[in-house]
């Protein structure tokens, strides 16, 4: 065992290697992505690792491996579990041979997500066990042990860290990786693997019969534990348990829930020894509902009486204030400290030279009253440029676009979607739009990478997760196969062509697809592309402000005139925007 300072996701990856895991799939999503990024970047690897096309595909692949007796890990963010919900629900029935761990990373406060859903609800819904770490060490240990738990009960296990576990760091004791490289073998068993009604009714009964045994085991294994110290108790789960422990007075009882389902008999015995119980957890009141069911006359505080917020994330300060409000004085009080006012915000922004920016710029020019459904990716930041009107979930740009079109809206509808998102769940929407005769334009922002989550390769990149070359998929061929007759590919750095193609597409009937292809500026830089910087000739600049409005972080205003700073990547789009011809290649003096 060695002690290392690890990111939560690194600790999870190391835990899986110690298990050892044999088969890994997933789709990138913050805050889950680093687990596979670490496993795929190992210098030596005798396990199978893939970035899958979407979470449903990922889970089905991992399930198959687990049926073949391998230990399989499938990673995703919480909303990815919606996409994978179909195989999840029935894999609980079929069970597994090798351990199957589904890591679904939740994001309280929606730091980088479209909602704050709680993966523990999926565990209750599907009746599979769920592990909920409160520290990085626990995340490591749970990831290591989850496969054996899955095998013990022949059932998939959901592993649910939150952002403040995945993207926190701590000193962590880690062991050595186990020996992987096991070969899977499929044993035919239609009663288990073919879920026709006659089989599935039996499987459902078996799933239900497992439940009491799982509940007991989770207490016996120490995931759920309690200490009685007085007439008042705090019950906490996940990282909220760490927050509570920092401010818990010595005379207050404490129960930590680290795994579900909760053993109700065990829970009732604890709760009934107290006069008052406060339940502290993030997101859905999963633990609180269980506590309330067994509480009888014991007073219970939590979300349902307004003491703990349903939304957002907790912190040690928030927990201390909740305890105080519930009449449980915390061991530490925190000062009120207000931030400085009147400061300009600094939101994340598309990079200097990002190929998405000129597309949004051209869309706004050509379609002055257009409607712009968009999707999930870096390009959602096009909101700041006035070119993103809707975002709901992966692949929903094209479907929202066709829905608006069929609703009778007469304005032009121009949707944007990235290459990875298009391949994830965009294709069925495009097929549907063509089949049903929608009149829309779809712009595929093809930067050949899944950029937002940390530049993971996808089928358009030309390499697999582990760097093995693979033929890049032709987006043009996919669109044509869906029945699109107008498919045009354009370089987004070429504003003139971009305008021309958008104008031409506007005049055509049906579904039009424009593929704006240019590598992500970050991957291009890493690959050694150096275009040389541009500069503004201050004497020629008329201070018209057009290039400033373009919104590139490399363009500043200095003494009312434009100035190009050292973030410039040399894309040259601003040169085409400047009406005075004041921008040119940098001249070294």
């Amino acid at each position: 065992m060695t002690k290392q300072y690890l990111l939560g996701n690194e600790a999870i990856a190391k835990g899986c290697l110690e298990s050892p895991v044999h088969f890994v799939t997933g789709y990138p999503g913050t805050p889950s992505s680093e687990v596979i990024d670490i496993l795929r970047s190992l210098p030596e690897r005798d396990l199978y690792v893939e970035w899958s096309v979407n979470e449903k595909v990922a889970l089905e692949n991992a399930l198959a491996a687990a049926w073949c007796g391998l230990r399989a890990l499938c990673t995703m963010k919480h909303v990815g579990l919606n996409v994978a919900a179909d195989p999840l629900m029935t894999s609980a029935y079929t069970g597994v041979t090798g351990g199957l761990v589904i890591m679904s990373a939740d994001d309280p406060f929606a730091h980088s997500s479209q909602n704050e859903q709680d993966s523990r609800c999926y565990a209750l819904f599907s009746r599979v066990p769920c592990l909920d770490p409160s520290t990085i060490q626990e995340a490591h240990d749970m990831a290591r042990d989850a496969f054996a738990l899955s095998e013990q009960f022949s059932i998939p296990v959901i592993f649910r860290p939150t952002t403040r576990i995945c993207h926190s760091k701590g000193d962590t004791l880690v062991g050595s990786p186990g020996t992987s490289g096991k070969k899977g073998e499929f044993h035919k068993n239609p009663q288990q693997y073919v879920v026709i009604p006659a089989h599935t009714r039996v499987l459902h009964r078996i799933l239900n019969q497992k439940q009491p045994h799982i509940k007991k085991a989770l207490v016996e294994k120490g995931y759920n534990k309690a200490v009685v110290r007085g007439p008042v108790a705090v019950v906490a789960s996940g990282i909220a348990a760490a927050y509570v422990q920092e401010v818990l007075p010595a005379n207050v009882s404490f129960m930590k829930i680290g795994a579900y389902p909760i053993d109700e008999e065990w829970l009732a015995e604890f709760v009934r020894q107290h006069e008052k119980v406060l339940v502290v957890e993030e997101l859905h009141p999963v633990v609180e509902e269980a506590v309330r069911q067994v509480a009888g006359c014991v007073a219970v505080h939590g979300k349902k009486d307004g003491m703990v917020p349903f939304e957002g994330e907790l912190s040690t300060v928030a927990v201390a204030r909740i305890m105080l409000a519930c009449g449980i004085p915390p061991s530490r009080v925190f000062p009120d400290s207000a931030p400085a006012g009147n400061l300009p915000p600094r939101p994340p922004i598309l990079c200097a030279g990002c190929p998405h920016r000129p597309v949004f710029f051209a869309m706004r020019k050509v379609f002055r009253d257009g409607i712009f459904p968009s999707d999930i990716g870096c390009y959602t930041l096009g909101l700041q440029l006035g070119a993103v009107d809707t975002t709901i979930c992966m692949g929903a740009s094209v479907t929202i676009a066709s829905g608006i079109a069929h609703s009778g809206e007469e304005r032009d509808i121009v949707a944007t979607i990235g290459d990875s998102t298009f391949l994830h769940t965009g294709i069925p929407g495009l097929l549907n739009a063509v089949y049903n005769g929608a009149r829309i334009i779809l712009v595929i922002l093809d930067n050949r990478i899944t950029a937002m989550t940390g530049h993971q390769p996808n089928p358009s990149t030309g390499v697999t997760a582990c760097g093995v070359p693979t033929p890049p998929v032709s987006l043009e061929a996919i669109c044509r196969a869906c029945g699109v007759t107008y498919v045009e590919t354009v370089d987004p750095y070429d504003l003139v062509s971009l305008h021309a193609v958008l104008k031409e597409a506007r005049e055509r009937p049906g579904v039009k697809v424009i593929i704006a292809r240019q590598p992500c500026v970050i991957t291009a830089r890493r690959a050694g592309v150096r275009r040389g910087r541009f500069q503004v000739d201050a004497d020629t600049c008329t201070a018209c402000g057009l290039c400033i409005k373009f919104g590139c972080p490399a363009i500043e205003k200095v003494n009312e005139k434009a100035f190009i700073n050292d973030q410039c990547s040399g894309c040259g789009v601003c040169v085409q925007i400047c009406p005075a011809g004041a921008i040119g290649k940098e001249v070294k003096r």
Partner: protein
Amino acid sequence: MSGSFDILMVGIGGQGIILASNILGEACLIEGRSVRGAETHGMAQRGGSVEGHIRIDGKFGPLIAPGTAHMMIAFDMLEGLRYAHFLAPGGHMVVNSHMVIPTSVFMQGAAVPAEEEVLERLGGLSLCLVDADALAAEAGSPLSQNVVMIGAASWFMPCAPESLLGAVERLVPKKTMEINRKAFELGRAAGERCREGSRGA
């Protein structure tokens, strides 16, 4: 009391806060201390305002409460002011004497305080100004700003400078170690001037 020494690092995505946080964490390992940290990852980094929490001797959650940070390291002056309310009374702020104006200011014409105004508003704090850009250039690479800042801050935290430098050595590519050692030493010299009562650069 939690007993931890809490350091908040703030800046702009891309300034190297994650490496700086790793250096502090690794220094804690060298000294056999427990440590907790939290930082901004993912798209939120793209040129946005970012924060890194480090709790030396921390045993619980990673987040530092407003009004309780024993020290702040601000890689940008404007971000220093944005997060100044995290500093505990008597805490030190080591701050880069430069600020990057947010692009939104140019696009939307939003008001932005001048550097003098930012300094004035930080006036009540125990401030150590470091010209990290110039010192990093002197060390040999603008990328070594984060190590300059850690060098300057090394006077105000419980980890020994040898441990911090040892951590730098473990974490940076070998060929950049000489630059980073120089960056650490230049930063440490700048921090010493603050410790002697002046405000630095």
